[in-house]
Protein backbone atom coordinates (compact mmCIF):
# COMPACT_ATOMS: atom_id res chain seq x y z
CA UNK A 1 0.00 0.00 0.00
CA UNK A 2 2.59 2.46 1.17
CA UNK A 3 4.93 1.26 -1.52
CA UNK A 4 2.28 1.87 -4.15
CA UNK A 5 1.75 5.41 -2.89
CA UNK A 6 5.49 6.23 -2.89
CA UNK A 7 5.95 4.86 -6.37
CA UNK A 8 2.96 6.91 -7.56
CA UNK A 9 4.49 9.99 -5.94
CA UNK A 10 7.82 9.19 -7.56
CA UNK A 11 6.12 8.96 -10.92
CA UNK A 12 4.32 12.25 -10.43
CA UNK A 13 7.55 13.96 -9.38
CA UNK A 14 9.51 12.50 -12.28
CA UNK A 15 6.72 13.53 -14.61
CA UNK A 16 6.83 17.14 -13.35
CA UNK A 17 10.63 17.16 -13.65
CA UNK A 18 10.53 15.71 -17.13
CA UNK A 19 7.94 18.24 -18.29
CA UNK A 20 9.98 21.08 -16.81
CA UNK A 21 13.17 19.78 -18.38
CA UNK A 22 11.58 19.32 -21.81
CA UNK A 23 10.05 22.80 -21.74
CA UNK A 24 13.29 24.41 -20.60
CA UNK A 25 15.68 22.65 -22.94
CA UNK A 26 13.47 23.07 -26.01
CA UNK A 27 12.62 26.69 -25.19
CA UNK A 28 9.48 25.90 -27.09
CA UNK A 29 6.78 28.36 -27.82
CA UNK A 30 3.38 26.85 -28.60
CA UNK A 31 0.93 28.06 -31.19
CA UNK A 32 -2.57 26.83 -31.78
CA UNK A 33 -3.76 27.77 -35.27
CA UNK A 34 -7.52 27.17 -35.68
CA UNK A 35 -7.23 24.50 -33.05
CA UNK A 36 -7.76 24.39 -29.30
CA UNK A 37 -6.29 22.02 -26.74
CA UNK A 38 -9.00 19.50 -25.92
CA UNK A 39 -9.39 16.20 -24.10
CA UNK A 40 -11.41 14.46 -26.84
CA UNK A 41 -9.67 11.62 -28.63
CA UNK A 42 -7.12 12.76 -31.14
CA UNK A 43 -4.24 11.59 -33.23
CA UNK A 44 -1.48 14.18 -33.23
CA UNK A 45 0.74 13.62 -36.25
CA UNK A 46 3.99 15.53 -36.59
CA UNK A 47 7.19 15.81 -38.57
CA UNK A 48 10.04 13.93 -36.94
CA UNK A 49 13.46 15.51 -36.57
CA UNK A 50 14.76 14.66 -33.11
CA UNK A 51 14.47 12.15 -30.29
CA UNK A 52 12.96 14.94 -28.25
CA UNK A 53 9.94 15.40 -30.53
CA UNK A 54 7.47 13.13 -28.74
CA UNK A 55 8.59 14.27 -25.31
CA UNK A 56 8.32 17.96 -26.20
CA UNK A 57 4.88 17.74 -27.82
CA UNK A 58 3.64 15.75 -24.86
CA UNK A 59 5.12 18.25 -22.36
CA UNK A 60 3.60 21.24 -24.10
CA UNK A 61 0.03 19.93 -23.84
CA UNK A 62 -2.03 21.25 -20.92
CA UNK A 63 -1.95 18.96 -17.90
CA UNK A 64 -5.38 17.32 -18.29
CA UNK A 65 -4.81 16.72 -22.00
CA UNK A 66 -1.33 15.39 -21.35
CA UNK A 67 -2.57 12.78 -18.92
CA UNK A 68 -4.74 11.35 -21.71
CA UNK A 69 -2.11 11.49 -24.45
CA UNK A 70 0.42 8.78 -25.17
CA UNK A 71 3.34 9.16 -27.56
CA UNK A 72 4.02 6.27 -29.89
CA UNK A 73 7.72 5.40 -29.83
CA UNK A 74 10.16 2.83 -31.12
CA UNK A 75 10.61 -0.12 -28.82
CA UNK A 76 14.24 -0.74 -29.83
CA UNK A 77 15.22 2.79 -28.71
CA UNK A 78 13.20 3.11 -25.54
CA UNK A 79 13.89 -0.31 -24.11
CA UNK A 80 17.63 0.19 -24.06
CA UNK A 81 19.35 1.10 -20.78
CA UNK A 82 17.67 1.61 -17.41
CA UNK A 83 16.31 5.15 -17.31
CA UNK A 84 14.57 5.16 -20.69
CA UNK A 85 12.30 2.13 -20.03
CA UNK A 86 11.24 3.64 -16.70
CA UNK A 87 10.47 7.00 -18.29
CA UNK A 88 8.62 5.42 -21.19
CA UNK A 89 6.52 3.07 -19.11
CA UNK A 90 5.74 4.96 -15.93
CA UNK A 91 6.35 8.61 -16.61
CA UNK A 92 5.04 9.49 -20.01
CA UNK A 93 3.20 6.31 -20.77
CA UNK A 94 4.69 5.76 -24.21
CA UNK A 95 3.18 3.13 -26.45
CA UNK A 96 6.17 1.13 -27.64
CA UNK A 97 6.00 -0.25 -31.15
CA UNK A 98 8.19 -2.97 -32.50
CA UNK A 99 9.74 -1.74 -35.72
CA UNK A 100 11.61 -4.89 -36.67
CA UNK A 101 9.18 -7.62 -35.89
CA UNK A 102 5.80 -6.81 -37.41
CA UNK A 103 3.36 -9.73 -37.49
CA UNK A 104 0.00 -10.00 -39.17
CA UNK A 105 -2.06 -10.00 -35.99
CA UNK A 106 0.23 -7.61 -34.19
CA UNK A 107 0.26 -4.80 -36.70
CA UNK A 108 1.16 -1.47 -35.08
CA UNK A 109 -2.14 0.06 -36.13
CA UNK A 110 -4.20 -2.65 -34.39
CA UNK A 111 -1.98 -2.42 -31.35
CA UNK A 112 -2.40 1.33 -31.14
CA UNK A 113 -6.15 1.16 -31.55
CA UNK A 114 -6.47 -1.52 -28.89
CA UNK A 115 -4.36 0.49 -26.43
CA UNK A 116 -6.10 3.82 -26.83
CA UNK A 117 -9.59 2.35 -26.47
CA UNK A 118 -12.13 5.13 -26.26
CA UNK A 119 -10.08 7.26 -23.90
CA UNK A 120 -6.56 8.09 -24.99
CA UNK A 121 -5.05 10.24 -27.69
CA UNK A 122 -1.76 9.39 -29.36
CA UNK A 123 1.19 11.22 -30.88
CA UNK A 124 2.56 9.64 -34.06
CA UNK A 125 5.29 10.45 -36.55
CA UNK A 126 4.10 9.21 -39.94
CA UNK A 127 7.50 9.74 -41.57
CA UNK A 128 8.54 6.67 -39.61
CA UNK A 129 12.09 7.84 -38.93
CA UNK A 130 13.91 10.98 -37.96
CA UNK A 131 14.40 13.23 -40.90
CA UNK A 132 17.67 15.08 -41.34
CA UNK A 133 16.75 17.21 -44.35
CA UNK A 134 14.67 20.35 -44.38
CA UNK A 135 11.74 18.84 -46.34
CA UNK A 136 9.19 16.53 -44.74
CA UNK A 137 9.41 12.98 -46.14
CA UNK A 138 6.53 10.94 -47.57
CA UNK A 139 4.14 9.71 -44.89
CA UNK A 140 3.83 6.00 -44.21
CA UNK A 141 0.37 4.51 -44.57
CA UNK A 142 -0.27 3.81 -40.87
CA UNK A 143 -2.01 7.13 -40.45
CA UNK A 144 -4.43 6.25 -43.25
CA UNK A 145 -5.39 2.92 -41.65
CA UNK A 146 -5.80 4.57 -38.25
CA UNK A 147 -8.16 7.12 -39.77
CA UNK A 148 -10.03 4.47 -41.72
CA UNK A 149 -10.62 2.20 -38.75
CA UNK A 150 -11.49 4.98 -36.35
CA UNK A 151 -13.11 7.79 -38.37
CA UNK A 152 -14.26 9.46 -35.15
CA UNK A 153 -10.72 10.46 -34.12
CA UNK A 154 -9.62 14.01 -34.84
CA UNK A 155 -6.39 14.12 -36.82
CA UNK A 156 -4.40 17.11 -35.60
CA UNK A 157 -1.32 18.15 -37.62
CA UNK A 158 1.64 19.35 -35.57
CA UNK A 159 4.70 21.09 -36.93
CA UNK A 160 7.94 21.08 -34.98
CA UNK A 161 10.46 23.74 -35.86
CA UNK A 162 14.14 23.91 -34.86
CA UNK A 163 14.12 21.00 -32.45
CA UNK A 164 16.58 19.15 -34.69
CA UNK A 165 19.15 21.77 -33.71
CA UNK A 166 18.45 21.22 -30.01
CA UNK A 167 19.20 17.52 -30.25
CA UNK A 168 20.27 16.40 -33.74
CA UNK A 169 20.44 12.82 -34.85
CA UNK A 170 23.37 10.97 -33.30
CA UNK A 171 23.95 13.46 -30.49
CA UNK A 172 23.12 12.82 -26.87
CA UNK A 173 23.70 16.22 -25.27
CA UNK A 174 21.04 18.84 -26.00
CA UNK A 175 21.87 22.47 -26.73
CA UNK A 176 19.17 24.81 -25.40
CA UNK A 177 18.12 26.73 -28.49
CA UNK A 178 14.55 27.94 -28.94
CA UNK A 179 12.02 25.91 -30.87
CA UNK A 180 8.44 26.32 -31.92
CA UNK A 181 5.58 23.80 -31.96
CA UNK A 182 2.45 24.59 -33.95
CA UNK A 183 -0.86 22.76 -33.68
CA UNK A 184 -3.05 23.11 -36.76
CA UNK A 185 -6.74 22.60 -37.65
CA UNK A 186 -7.87 18.93 -37.57
CA UNK A 187 -8.25 17.02 -40.84
CA UNK A 188 -10.43 13.97 -41.60
CA UNK A 189 -10.44 11.11 -44.02
CA UNK A 190 -13.14 11.88 -46.57
CA UNK A 191 -15.46 9.07 -47.65
CA UNK A 192 -13.76 7.09 -50.40
CA UNK A 193 -10.62 9.22 -50.36
CA UNK A 194 -7.70 7.26 -51.85
CA UNK A 195 -4.76 6.48 -49.58
CA UNK A 196 -2.17 8.38 -51.59
CA UNK A 197 -4.32 11.50 -51.74
CA UNK A 198 -5.02 11.38 -48.03
CA UNK A 199 -1.37 10.96 -47.07
CA UNK A 200 -0.41 13.81 -49.34
CA UNK A 201 -3.08 15.99 -47.74
CA UNK A 202 -1.87 15.09 -44.26
CA UNK A 203 1.74 15.86 -45.13
CA UNK A 204 0.71 19.17 -46.66
CA UNK A 205 -1.28 20.02 -43.49
CA UNK A 206 1.90 19.69 -41.44
CA UNK A 207 4.11 21.49 -43.94
CA UNK A 208 1.72 24.43 -44.19
CA UNK A 209 2.07 25.16 -40.47
CA UNK A 210 5.73 26.06 -40.97
CA UNK A 211 4.84 29.26 -42.78
CA UNK A 212 1.85 30.40 -40.73
Amino acid at each position, binding site marked *: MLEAITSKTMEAVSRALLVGFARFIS*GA*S*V*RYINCQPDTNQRIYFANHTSHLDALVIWSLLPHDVRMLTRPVAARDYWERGRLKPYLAKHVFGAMLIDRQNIKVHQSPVDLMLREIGDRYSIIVFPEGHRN*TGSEIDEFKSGLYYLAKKRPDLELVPVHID*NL*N*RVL*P*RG*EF*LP*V*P*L*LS*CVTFGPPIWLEAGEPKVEFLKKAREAVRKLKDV
Partner: protein
Amino acid sequence: MDSFDLPTFWIFTTLLMVLTAATVVGQMLRRQTELGVNPAVVEQFNLRVRSWWMLTAMLAVGFLLGPSVTVALFGGLSFWALREFITLTPTRIADHRTLFWVFFVFTPLQFYLVATGQYEVYSILIPVYAFLFIPARIALAGDFKRYLERCTTIQTGLMICVYCLSYAPALQSIPLKDAQPVRLLLFFFIIVALSDAFHYACEKLLGKHLIAPAISQNKTWEGFLGGLGCASLAGMALYWASPFRAPQAAMMAALISAMGYCGGLTMSAIKRDRGVKDYGTLLVGHSGVLDRIDSICFAAPVFYHATKYLVTQGLT
Protein backbone atom coordinates in the same frame (compact mmCIF):
# COMPACT_ATOMS: atom_id res chain seq x y z
CA MET B 1 22.25 42.80 3.49
CA ASP B 2 24.16 46.04 3.89
CA SER B 3 22.26 48.97 5.23
CA PHE B 4 21.42 51.55 2.58
CA ASP B 5 23.70 54.54 2.52
CA LEU B 6 21.94 57.76 1.67
CA PRO B 7 23.06 58.31 -1.97
CA THR B 8 22.25 54.68 -2.79
CA PHE B 9 18.79 55.17 -1.34
CA TRP B 10 18.25 58.31 -3.41
CA ILE B 11 19.55 56.88 -6.66
CA PHE B 12 17.29 53.88 -6.22
CA THR B 13 14.34 56.15 -5.50
CA THR B 14 15.20 58.16 -8.61
CA LEU B 15 15.25 55.00 -10.69
CA LEU B 16 11.80 54.05 -9.39
CA MET B 17 10.49 57.54 -10.11
CA VAL B 18 11.88 57.53 -13.66
CA LEU B 19 10.30 54.16 -14.35
CA THR B 20 6.96 55.24 -12.89
CA ALA B 21 7.02 58.35 -15.04
CA ALA B 22 7.89 56.30 -18.14
CA THR B 23 5.07 53.87 -17.37
CA VAL B 24 2.56 56.69 -16.99
CA VAL B 25 3.68 58.36 -20.23
CA GLY B 26 3.58 55.02 -22.06
CA GLN B 27 0.04 54.26 -20.90
CA MET B 28 -1.13 57.78 -21.75
CA LEU B 29 0.31 57.45 -25.25
CA ARG B 30 -1.44 54.13 -25.64
CA ARG B 31 -4.86 55.64 -24.85
CA GLN B 32 -4.20 58.86 -26.76
CA THR B 33 -4.88 58.37 -30.48
CA GLU B 34 -5.19 61.93 -31.79
CA LEU B 35 -1.50 62.69 -31.24
CA GLY B 36 -0.76 60.54 -34.26
CA VAL B 37 1.98 58.52 -32.61
CA ASN B 38 2.57 55.20 -34.31
CA PRO B 39 0.97 52.53 -32.04
CA ALA B 40 3.74 50.06 -32.88
CA VAL B 41 6.34 52.52 -31.57
CA VAL B 42 4.33 53.07 -28.38
CA GLU B 43 4.05 49.32 -27.94
CA GLN B 44 7.82 49.01 -28.36
CA PHE B 45 8.35 51.73 -25.78
CA ASN B 46 6.00 50.06 -23.30
CA LEU B 47 7.71 46.71 -23.74
CA ARG B 48 11.02 48.38 -23.08
CA VAL B 49 9.69 50.06 -19.94
CA ARG B 50 8.40 46.74 -18.72
CA SER B 51 11.78 45.15 -19.22
CA TRP B 52 13.35 48.01 -17.26
CA TRP B 53 11.01 47.22 -14.38
CA MET B 54 12.12 43.63 -14.49
CA LEU B 55 15.78 44.61 -14.53
CA THR B 56 15.19 46.92 -11.58
CA ALA B 57 13.51 44.09 -9.68
CA MET B 58 16.54 41.98 -10.53
CA LEU B 59 18.89 44.63 -9.15
CA ALA B 60 16.80 44.93 -5.99
CA VAL B 61 16.89 41.18 -5.42
CA GLY B 62 20.63 41.22 -6.07
CA PHE B 63 21.09 44.06 -3.61
CA LEU B 64 19.18 42.22 -0.90
CA LEU B 65 20.90 38.89 -1.40
CA GLY B 66 24.43 39.97 -2.26
CA PRO B 67 26.59 40.76 -5.30
CA SER B 68 27.05 37.15 -6.38
CA VAL B 69 23.28 36.82 -6.75
CA THR B 70 23.31 39.83 -9.07
CA VAL B 71 26.02 38.14 -11.11
CA ALA B 72 24.00 34.91 -11.26
CA LEU B 73 20.87 36.75 -12.39
CA PHE B 74 22.83 38.42 -15.18
CA GLY B 75 24.21 35.00 -16.06
CA GLY B 76 20.65 33.80 -16.60
CA LEU B 77 19.91 36.82 -18.76
CA SER B 78 23.02 36.12 -20.84
CA PHE B 79 22.06 32.51 -21.27
CA TRP B 80 18.64 33.48 -22.59
CA ALA B 81 19.99 36.18 -24.90
CA LEU B 82 22.51 33.72 -26.33
CA ARG B 83 19.73 31.22 -27.00
CA GLU B 84 17.93 33.81 -29.05
CA PHE B 85 21.06 34.87 -30.88
CA ILE B 86 22.16 31.36 -31.84
CA THR B 87 18.62 30.30 -32.71
CA LEU B 88 18.47 33.02 -35.34
CA THR B 89 21.94 32.47 -36.77
CA PRO B 90 22.57 29.78 -39.34
CA THR B 91 24.77 27.26 -37.62
CA ARG B 92 25.04 23.73 -38.96
CA ILE B 93 24.46 20.39 -37.31
CA ALA B 94 28.24 19.87 -37.09
CA ASP B 95 28.45 22.84 -34.72
CA HIS B 96 26.38 21.04 -32.12
CA ARG B 97 29.21 20.08 -29.77
CA THR B 98 30.84 23.49 -30.13
CA LEU B 99 27.56 25.08 -29.09
CA PHE B 100 27.36 22.75 -26.14
CA TRP B 101 30.72 24.10 -24.96
CA VAL B 102 29.58 27.66 -25.56
CA PHE B 103 26.39 27.26 -23.54
CA PHE B 104 27.51 24.99 -20.74
CA VAL B 105 31.19 25.80 -20.29
CA PHE B 106 32.10 29.29 -21.47
CA THR B 107 28.94 31.07 -20.31
CA PRO B 108 28.85 29.73 -16.74
CA LEU B 109 32.63 30.01 -16.45
CA GLN B 110 32.58 33.67 -17.47
CA PHE B 111 30.02 34.52 -14.80
CA TYR B 112 31.76 32.39 -12.20
CA LEU B 113 34.96 34.34 -12.85
CA VAL B 114 33.07 37.63 -12.59
CA ALA B 115 31.48 36.54 -9.31
CA THR B 116 34.87 35.62 -7.88
CA GLY B 117 36.43 38.82 -9.18
CA GLN B 118 39.15 37.28 -11.35
CA TYR B 119 39.48 40.14 -13.80
CA GLU B 120 42.75 38.86 -15.30
CA VAL B 121 40.97 35.71 -16.46
CA TYR B 122 37.46 36.85 -17.31
CA SER B 123 38.69 39.77 -19.38
CA ILE B 124 40.40 37.35 -21.81
CA LEU B 125 38.44 34.13 -21.47
CA ILE B 126 36.13 34.76 -24.41
CA PRO B 127 38.14 37.18 -26.60
CA VAL B 128 41.20 34.93 -26.51
CA TYR B 129 40.45 31.39 -25.39
CA ALA B 130 36.95 30.96 -26.79
CA PHE B 131 38.17 32.70 -29.94
CA LEU B 132 40.80 30.01 -30.36
CA PHE B 133 38.67 27.14 -29.15
CA ILE B 134 35.62 27.66 -31.38
CA PRO B 135 37.31 27.46 -34.82
CA ALA B 136 39.41 24.51 -33.67
CA ARG B 137 36.39 22.61 -32.38
CA ILE B 138 34.40 23.31 -35.53
CA ALA B 139 37.30 22.15 -37.69
CA LEU B 140 37.52 19.01 -35.60
CA ALA B 141 33.86 18.29 -36.40
CA GLY B 142 34.92 18.10 -40.04
CA ASP B 143 32.35 20.22 -41.84
CA PHE B 144 33.96 23.09 -43.78
CA LYS B 145 30.87 24.53 -45.41
CA ARG B 146 30.59 28.27 -44.61
CA TYR B 147 33.33 27.65 -42.05
CA LEU B 148 34.40 31.23 -41.34
CA GLU B 149 30.84 32.47 -41.18
CA ARG B 150 29.89 29.87 -38.59
CA CYS B 151 32.97 30.58 -36.44
CA THR B 152 32.27 34.27 -36.58
CA THR B 153 28.59 34.14 -35.73
CA ILE B 154 29.14 31.89 -32.73
CA GLN B 155 32.02 34.05 -31.50
CA THR B 156 30.00 37.24 -32.02
CA GLY B 157 27.06 35.80 -30.10
CA LEU B 158 29.32 34.86 -27.24
CA MET B 159 31.00 38.28 -27.22
CA ILE B 160 27.80 40.33 -27.28
CA CYS B 161 25.47 38.21 -25.18
CA VAL B 162 27.93 36.87 -22.62
CA TYR B 163 31.21 38.75 -22.52
CA CYS B 164 29.88 42.29 -22.88
CA LEU B 165 26.87 41.74 -20.66
CA SER B 166 29.02 40.25 -17.91
CA TYR B 167 30.69 43.65 -17.49
CA ALA B 168 27.44 45.05 -16.07
CA PRO B 169 27.53 43.01 -12.84
CA ALA B 170 31.33 43.39 -12.85
CA LEU B 171 30.80 47.11 -12.21
CA GLN B 172 30.21 46.15 -8.59
CA SER B 173 33.80 45.05 -8.22
CA ILE B 174 35.40 48.40 -9.06
CA PRO B 175 36.89 49.57 -5.77
CA LEU B 176 35.25 52.87 -4.80
CA LYS B 177 35.93 55.02 -1.77
CA ASP B 178 33.14 54.82 0.84
CA ALA B 179 30.38 53.74 -1.50
CA GLN B 180 28.32 50.63 -1.90
CA PRO B 181 29.20 48.50 -4.89
CA VAL B 182 25.62 48.49 -6.12
CA ARG B 183 25.52 52.27 -6.53
CA LEU B 184 27.67 52.41 -9.66
CA LEU B 185 25.47 49.73 -11.19
CA LEU B 186 22.35 51.76 -10.39
CA PHE B 187 23.91 54.89 -11.89
CA PHE B 188 24.75 52.93 -15.04
CA PHE B 189 21.24 51.51 -15.38
CA ILE B 190 19.44 54.73 -14.79
CA ILE B 191 21.53 56.42 -17.50
CA VAL B 192 20.98 53.59 -19.99
CA ALA B 193 17.23 53.65 -19.32
CA LEU B 194 16.98 57.45 -19.53
CA SER B 195 19.11 57.54 -22.65
CA ASP B 196 16.84 54.95 -24.31
CA ALA B 197 13.79 57.00 -23.40
CA PHE B 198 15.39 60.26 -24.61
CA HIS B 199 16.35 58.64 -27.91
CA TYR B 200 12.73 57.62 -28.42
CA ALA B 201 11.41 61.03 -27.47
CA CYS B 202 13.85 62.98 -29.65
CA GLU B 203 13.26 60.72 -32.61
CA LYS B 204 9.52 61.18 -32.38
CA LEU B 205 9.68 64.93 -31.83
CA LEU B 206 12.62 66.03 -33.97
CA GLY B 207 13.69 63.06 -36.09
CA LYS B 208 14.34 63.94 -39.75
CA HIS B 209 17.70 62.74 -41.03
CA LEU B 210 18.08 58.98 -41.04
CA ILE B 211 21.48 57.63 -40.01
CA ALA B 212 21.32 54.40 -41.98
CA PRO B 213 18.02 54.11 -43.87
CA ALA B 214 18.75 50.59 -45.09
CA ILE B 215 19.16 49.35 -41.55
CA SER B 216 16.59 51.22 -39.52
CA GLN B 217 13.80 53.62 -40.38
CA ASN B 218 13.67 54.85 -36.78
CA LYS B 219 17.23 55.89 -36.08
CA THR B 220 17.89 59.53 -36.87
CA TRP B 221 20.73 61.97 -36.18
CA GLU B 222 18.35 64.15 -34.21
CA GLY B 223 17.41 61.22 -32.00
CA PHE B 224 21.05 60.28 -31.49
CA LEU B 225 22.28 63.77 -30.64
CA GLY B 226 19.19 64.75 -28.65
CA GLY B 227 19.40 61.57 -26.61
CA LEU B 228 23.10 62.13 -26.08
CA GLY B 229 22.56 65.71 -24.87
CA CYS B 230 19.68 64.87 -22.54
CA ALA B 231 21.54 61.86 -21.14
CA SER B 232 24.61 63.92 -20.31
CA LEU B 233 22.45 66.51 -18.54
CA ALA B 234 20.84 63.69 -16.57
CA GLY B 235 24.31 62.31 -15.77
CA MET B 236 25.41 65.70 -14.50
CA ALA B 237 22.24 66.01 -12.40
CA LEU B 238 22.91 62.61 -10.84
CA TYR B 239 26.65 63.04 -10.31
CA TRP B 240 26.21 62.90 -6.50
CA ALA B 241 25.35 59.22 -6.77
CA SER B 242 28.39 58.38 -8.90
CA PRO B 243 32.06 58.38 -7.98
CA PHE B 244 32.62 61.15 -10.60
CA ARG B 245 32.80 64.92 -10.55
CA ALA B 246 29.92 66.69 -12.29
CA PRO B 247 31.59 67.20 -15.73
CA GLN B 248 32.99 63.68 -15.64
CA ALA B 249 29.53 62.31 -14.88
CA ALA B 250 28.18 64.17 -17.91
CA MET B 251 30.92 62.73 -20.13
CA MET B 252 30.29 59.24 -18.82
CA ALA B 253 26.57 59.54 -19.46
CA ALA B 254 27.30 60.72 -23.01
CA LEU B 255 29.56 57.71 -23.48
CA ILE B 256 26.87 55.33 -22.21
CA SER B 257 24.28 56.96 -24.43
CA ALA B 258 26.45 56.76 -27.56
CA MET B 259 27.41 53.14 -26.94
CA GLY B 260 23.82 52.17 -26.19
CA TYR B 261 22.76 53.71 -29.48
CA CYS B 262 25.46 51.79 -31.35
CA GLY B 263 24.18 48.63 -29.68
CA GLY B 264 20.68 49.20 -31.01
CA LEU B 265 22.02 49.96 -34.48
CA THR B 266 24.22 46.86 -34.54
CA MET B 267 21.37 44.61 -33.47
CA SER B 268 19.14 46.15 -36.14
CA ALA B 269 21.79 45.34 -38.74
CA ILE B 270 22.05 41.74 -37.57
CA LYS B 271 18.27 41.41 -37.58
CA ARG B 272 18.03 42.88 -41.08
CA ASP B 273 20.59 40.41 -42.28
CA ARG B 274 18.65 37.53 -40.77
CA GLY B 275 15.38 38.91 -42.16
CA VAL B 276 13.56 39.40 -38.89
CA LYS B 277 12.29 42.57 -37.30
CA ASP B 278 12.50 41.56 -33.66
CA TYR B 279 14.24 38.71 -31.93
CA GLY B 280 10.86 38.17 -30.34
CA THR B 281 8.73 37.86 -33.47
CA LEU B 282 10.16 34.66 -34.89
CA LEU B 283 9.78 33.02 -31.53
CA VAL B 284 6.18 33.59 -30.63
CA GLY B 285 5.51 33.95 -26.94
CA HIS B 286 9.01 35.10 -26.09
CA SER B 287 9.47 38.76 -25.43
CA GLY B 288 12.88 38.87 -27.07
CA VAL B 289 15.45 39.45 -24.34
CA LEU B 290 18.07 40.48 -26.86
CA ASP B 291 15.85 43.30 -28.13
CA ARG B 292 15.78 44.79 -24.65
CA ILE B 293 19.37 44.51 -23.54
CA ASP B 294 21.26 45.53 -26.68
CA SER B 295 22.13 48.95 -25.26
CA ILE B 296 23.38 47.44 -21.99
CA CYS B 297 25.60 44.96 -23.83
CA PHE B 298 27.37 47.70 -25.74
CA ALA B 299 27.61 50.27 -22.98
CA ALA B 300 28.71 48.02 -20.09
CA PRO B 301 32.31 47.14 -21.04
CA VAL B 302 33.16 50.67 -22.17
CA PHE B 303 31.68 52.23 -19.04
CA TYR B 304 33.52 49.66 -16.93
CA HIS B 305 36.91 50.46 -18.39
CA ALA B 306 36.42 54.22 -18.43
CA THR B 307 35.32 54.20 -14.80
CA LYS B 308 38.15 51.94 -13.75
CA TYR B 309 40.65 54.19 -15.51
CA LEU B 310 39.36 57.34 -13.78
CA VAL B 311 39.18 55.65 -10.38
CA THR B 312 42.61 54.04 -10.49
CA GLN B 313 44.24 57.21 -11.82
CA GLY B 314 42.76 59.07 -8.87
CA LEU B 315 41.01 61.56 -11.11
CA THR B 316 37.62 61.41 -9.46
